[in-house]
């Protein structure tokens, strides 16, 4: 049985209320959701991951196409991570620190220090762009903001990120 067939069977069984399948789905989804929530929610990453998984299961019956599971779960994870990070307000509300371009050598460092200085929304843009390689239009759709907003944030961000890093 292929991985896709196995995943489809797991999702369908979980949708029918099979607790063992739900547990299997938690195993399958947790690494990906932790990877999406970590850069956005930082210290609150475990809380965000837990709440994102609960939200995934609340909406699972409405997922018509099991093959779309990860894309669908990603949108939930990003939304929950931003919400949890906002709630705890651990990000610094200083002037926006801007972001490097994809592939920029500046990113070849521990990025945690940079993320600490960003708002949750900007961490989400950075993560989706750099980690998942999404284009601006897709990011805009996922975050429910105009594509121009994503583009201008990224553009402005790249300039001042370098200034901040060079301090």
């Amino acid at each position, binding site marked *: 049985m292929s991985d896709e067939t196995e995943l489809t069977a797991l999702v369908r069984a979980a949708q029918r209320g099979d*607790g063992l399948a739900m*547990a299997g789905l938690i195993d399958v989804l947790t690494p990906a959701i*932790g990877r999406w929530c*970590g850069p956005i929610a930082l210290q609150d*990453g*475990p809380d965000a991951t*837990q709440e994102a998984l609960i939200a995934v299961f609340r909406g699972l019956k409405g997922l018509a196409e099991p093959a779309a599971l990860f894309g669908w779960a990603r949108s939930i994870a990003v939304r929950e991570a931003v919400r949890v990070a906002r709630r705890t307000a651990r990000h610094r509300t200083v002037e926006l620190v801007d972001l490097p371009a994809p592939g920029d050598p500046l990113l070849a460092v521990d*990025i945690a220090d940079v993320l600490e200085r960003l708002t949750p929304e900007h961490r989400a843009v950075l993560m989706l762009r750099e980690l998942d390689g999404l284009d601006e239009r897709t990011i805009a759709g996922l975050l429910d903001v105009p594509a121009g907003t994503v583009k201008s944030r990224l553009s402005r961000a790249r300039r001042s990120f370098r200034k901040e890093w060079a301090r």
Partner: protein
Amino acid sequence: MSWPIADLDAVRRLHVLAGAVPGAAAAESVLPASFDQVWAVAADLEGELPRYLPDVRSLRITRVDGDRLEADARGYAGLRAHFDIVLRPGWCVMRSRFLLGAMAAVADGDHTRFAFLAGAQLPVQRVVGPVLSVVGRWSAPRVVARFGERVALRR
């Protein structure tokens, strides 16, 4: 590059499962024992589970395939149930036609956080879920307490 990755420990995963299964109830406690001591009791399903689950008279493992097990349980009220089980260190989920149970444990310094879940499977989930939820909220902490007693006795 080192992006932060959020981890979800087994006890948190159990709470996710409790949130996903209608009517499921979970209870948690920090036990004054090491993870190995706690999990030695949890993983001994045949020997220990009937000692802390009041409705189970006996449980017999019938098949083992890696972390997948099958077991037949007998209850005091004549209940007989076949369980499919996933068992690995810190994580155990048991599912019969009508019932769902889970245990999780995570080391917490010298102690261990232990959690237990009780719930119903479809098709009875929607019918008895609300009742089980009330019963589970009452019984799950008692199961955890009895489990803690078993750990203390075996230390």
